[in-house]
């Protein structure tokens, strides 16, 4: 009996693998193989046209001592993640909570908040390029004369604002879905106990949303570490390197330079991947653990 059950299970597993095979094929070719190849390239000097030349850790060393990386890309990326992730998470949570209340016209608001998420980031970047130009609407409304995107002090914060505005919608949607999952009975009980709306938010909504918060923060961190398209369109890393991020530097080395430095771009990619990994692990400790202990 046991043997035949085992055989049956193996049979099922086989069927599962057969059905998965198209996806597995793509996964191995375009993900596993690509990552492996990039890992190999990160130890080489490779300009695309000549065969890769093994140089060991030399390219990693060059990245970590490169002025564009240390002085611009690394601090800019960390600043970007450090500001954009908390702001977009908190703002989207507040908006989601508001949208979950029975307020007038919330369907319209929901749609409005979500529109940026379904708009191409290139289009959004172009719109903000106009809004934040020296003679743009933002300066006119506030009576300023700041050249937002051509000023080393303001360029990165401007792009942060664009990204926060553009991503809030998706995150709000995730929070909204999670909010719908919270049993109404909990709110009712809290209301009977005399909790006000802030107490309800703090002691019921937030703890119940922990998995959603973890998801949103993780996706936010990964997205922010890899910020590229807005920068490519709006500032091309300038002025004076003030918006050069790690992902932009990778692109510059891999494709934009006249003499391609593919090995260095690959090495930088792995440095970026390791950074994302470390941050995600730390984050897990902070966000997921308390929930497990709480139960």
């Amino acid at each position, binding site marked *: 009996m046991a043997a035949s059950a085992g055989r049956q299970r193996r049979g099922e597993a086989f069927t599962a693998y057969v059905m998965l095979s198209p996806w597995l094929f793509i996964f191995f070719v375009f993900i596993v193989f690509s990552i492996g190849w990039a890992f190999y390239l990160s130890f080489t000097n490779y300009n695309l046209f000549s065969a890769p030349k093994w140089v060991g850790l030399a390219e990693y060393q060059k990245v970590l001592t490169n002025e564009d990386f240390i002085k611009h890309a690394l601090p800019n990326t960390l600043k970007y993640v450090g500001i954009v992730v908390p702001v977009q998470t908190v703002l989207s949570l507040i908006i989601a909570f508001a949208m979950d209340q029975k307020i007038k016209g919330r369907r319209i608001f929901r749609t409005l908040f979500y529109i940026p998420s379904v708009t191409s980031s290139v289009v959004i970047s172009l719109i903000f390029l106009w809004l934040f130009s020296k003679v743009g609407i933002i300066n006119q409304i506030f009576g300023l004369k700041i*050249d937002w995107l051509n000023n080393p002090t303001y360029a990165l914060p401007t792009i942060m604002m664009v990204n926060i505005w553009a991503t809030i919608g998706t995150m709000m949607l995730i929070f909204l879905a999670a909010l719908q999952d919270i049993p109404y009975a909990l709110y009712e009980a809290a209301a009977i106990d005399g909790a006000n709306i802030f107490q309800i938010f703090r002691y019921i909504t937030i703890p119940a949303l922990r998995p959603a918060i973890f998801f949103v923060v993780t996706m936010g961190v990964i997205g922010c570490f890899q910020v590229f398209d807005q920068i490519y369109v709006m500032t091309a890393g300038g002025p004076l390197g003030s918006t050069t991020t790690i992902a932009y530097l990778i692109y510059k080395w891999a*494709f934009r330079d006249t003499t391609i430095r593919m090995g260095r771009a690959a090495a930088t990619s792995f440095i970026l991947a390791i950074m994302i990994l470390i941050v995600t692990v730390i984050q897990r400790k902070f966000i997921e653990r308390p929930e497990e202990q709480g139960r």
Partner: protein
Amino acid sequence: MKRSLFALLTLAVVATLLVACGPQTVTVTVPVEKTVEVVKTVEVTKEVPVEVPAERVEVRLSGWASSPSETALLESLLYKFSVENPDIVVKYEPITGDFWQAIKTSVAASTEPDIYYMDIFQFPFFAQQGVLAPLDDYMAKDGVKKDEFIPTLMDAFTYEGKIYGIPKDFNTLGLFYNKDLFAKAGLTEPTDDWTWNDLQAAAEKLSDPANNVYGFGVPADSGRFPVFVFQNGGQVMNADFSDTLLDSPEAIAAAKFYTDFRAKKIGAIPSDVGEGWQGTAFGKGNFAMVYEGGWLIPYLAQQFPNTQYGVVTPPAGPQGEGNLIFTVAYVLSQNSKHPEAAWKVINFLTNAASQQTVLESGFALPSRAALEQSDYLKNNPASAAIFRGARDGTPFMWGLKGSDVNDQMGKALERVYLENQDVTASMQEAAQKIREALKD
């Protein structure tokens, strides 16, 4: 069940084979013009049977697609070619998006087209890596002489004594000036004989910062600033591109002259007036004079048809004339399986008749020297000024690390503009960083 499936498959295979060796003629869709009623011309297509020779070779051609009308122009030339050479099929594969990313990766994978566009700025790397085929033998065989083309352009695509590209067209910088603003300021319009002093004096009179009008556009752009370096007797790089000369007294003095326009508020960068490009600032009348290439002419005609402007060659500096040349060539891949056929295509696209067609279309300035005397340029003084600029021009190319040189040159000007850094220190910093990049 199984047998019927097998039969079905056999049938399918046989059918495919039959189709494959079937017809000897193919139908090609060819655009023909047909006049309808009195005024309207409508484009209709007609199926034309074309006799196809038994052996045909396929040649692939790639370039960036700058505009639908320019693509149509190339396609019409290729159609003419196909009529004259029925044994060669040219497959035109325009690349939309990032051309260099696409072409470099396809070269890496050895799947690049037989013929592709080569910008002079990118040329040194391709030539040094040996992925292009030399064209000297083909040129000699078909009697194509080097001096039929503008010499600077031919020399630009020469690497270690061999020609690797036939220049298809080029652009230089011209001094575009706004006629209305000149009339308002009571100034006489510029001529080819102007000097730096004339430029500065006119910029002073034309500027009206309170109304967002500036005399001259001085962007932190490595595609404009070097003109002043050349005119001051300097160079961006030394002859073999192994060192930069941006910290030479000539280059530093040129940078001072250039950045002084903005310091004195008689010049500005495009973002000062809320634009991303000075061409737009010129069209809107914010900049009275700009250095731009022939690409500005169709742009102004489309976007700012009411802007009255003229074009002359850039004013001479203390050490005479100077200009930048932007040029693109057709190159032949070293990997090409049909280099003879591909050469025929290149030769056809750059022959006198084709280049005349390109010139008359108004999209670009073709590279043949004889065209300077053409009626078209006589009737189009703006384009003629851009064409004349080639005489005093230096190709826009800084060697293998060109992008690093460009970046640092731009940053040197940005440091002066945005951080009020001293010009000399900023140029020295740029030179030092370029030297680091050259060693890297």
